């Protein structure tokens, strides 16, 4: 049986983890590769690096990170942030990423998803959707870190990028991100039920029950979280055991 995935996400700026990982005694809590190794050892199912200040000038540091991580962690690695063209996808894949995530660029031009999927295969193309509630049962895409409204309906957009060949959707609720109040479950469910590809729920995790809710109520295939793991509140193992106890198939070996 396919297992539900737990994906810790590291925000990276200029090659450094923005909020250091504190759950183990790392020599350098700001080194993304060291954090990645710790999560690998802890049994995380995948890793995600998000380049939050991606600019053309600092792309090199992300390639270097991807390379060094892939040399040491034999697990799937997704990289996002500032990905605009199929060339960006190519460079990140060659550097060592397994999947690359589009965000604003896919909103500006959904065909970039089709071009990337045609060239590299859907399996490595993720579309990150940042959505905000505009009225009950209605969610809109926001770009530029949630600051810029687009007027595009999130569910329709999810269907569009699926049809273009995206292999997975990383869905972040901008209403919930950082609140620790739990995933936006109606949003997660609306999108997970509308598309045939896996949806990763993100934004708002504060407790282990939130992870369970994301799967049972939100119909997510995977759950992404940052702070509850980075600060050592819960280990990956504790999260997996909690979810397994609730009846979700998890990889516990």
């Amino acid at each position, binding site marked *: 049986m*396919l297992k539900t995935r737990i994906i810790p996400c590291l925000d990276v700026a200029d090659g450094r983890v923005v909020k250091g990982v504190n759950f183990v005694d790392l020599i350098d809590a700001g080194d993304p590769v060291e954090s990645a190794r710790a999560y690998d050892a802890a049994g995380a199912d995948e890793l995600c690096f998000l380049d939050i200040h991606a600019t053309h000038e600092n792309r090199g540091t992300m390639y270097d990170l991807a390379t060094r991580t892939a040399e040491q962690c034999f697990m799937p690695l997704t990289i996002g942030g500032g990905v605009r063209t199929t060339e960006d996808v190519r460079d990140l894949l060659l550097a060592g*990423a397994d999947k690359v995530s589009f965000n604003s660029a896919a909103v500006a031009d959904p065909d970039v998803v089709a071009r990337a999927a045609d060239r590299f*295969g859907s399996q490595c193309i993720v579309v990150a959707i940042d959505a905000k509630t505009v009225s009950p049962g209605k969610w809109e895409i926001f770009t530029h870190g949630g600051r810029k409204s687009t007027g595009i309906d999130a569910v329709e957009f999810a269907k569009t990028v699926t049809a273009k060949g995206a*292999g997975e959707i990383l869905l972040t609720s901008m209403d919930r991100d950082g609140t620790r109040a739990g995933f936006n479950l109606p949003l997660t469910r609306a999108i997970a039920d509308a598309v045939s590809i*896996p949806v990763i729920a993100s934004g708002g995790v504060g407790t282990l029950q939130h992870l369970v809710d994301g799967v049972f109520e939100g119909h997510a295939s995977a759950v992404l979280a940052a702070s509850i793991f980075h600060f050592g509140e819960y280990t990956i193992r504790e999260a997996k055991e909690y979810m397994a106890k609730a009846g979700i198939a998890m990889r516990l070996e």
Partner: protein
Amino acid sequence: MLTVLVDYDSGNLHSAEKAFQRMASETGSGSVIVSSKPEDVARADRIVLPGDGAFPACKKQLFDYSGLYEAIENAVIKKARPFMGICIGMQMMATRGLEYEITPGFNWIPGDVVRITPSDPSMKVPHMGWNDLILDSPHPVLDGLTTGNHAYFVHSYHFVVRDSAHRLAHCDYGGDITAIVGRDNMIGTQFHPEKSQAAGLRLISNFLQWNP
């Protein structure tokens, strides 16, 4: 001892290279290189064919390298060198791929590569993530692995073998999904051993020491 990972511009070979190099060093199995040259394949003791993306595109890209497939076939079929296909590299061992169009495979292991159709239509395709292996028959490359070990899959098509003896392991995703195929000196994994942590590294290590 030389293991060649065949590079034909199909995705990222970096982690596969590092995983094979690490296990080659741990087991004293010689060197591992990534190459597109038929002459490197010809002198290889072991050959690994990875592959990401769509079956027709991978097949075309491989055959765009002049003499590369011929060198692989010569090494694997005539000289019986140990071979491992990974993901689309495994699927191309089939008779035919039915992704988008009918594409002939190498026809080393009879069967077709068809779209995954889970019995429960709410199940997502691609089949993406960790699934537990169910071993069908013992094999030296599966030494130390047991039913219940997890491997990392990401694919929308799967290999339906004609002769069940060629299926060494499968997993369940609303029906059987072939996870490992094998015959004589060749083996293929639908999942990514280089992404499958301990179980994947064990399989790579076994392959590097396999003398069929």
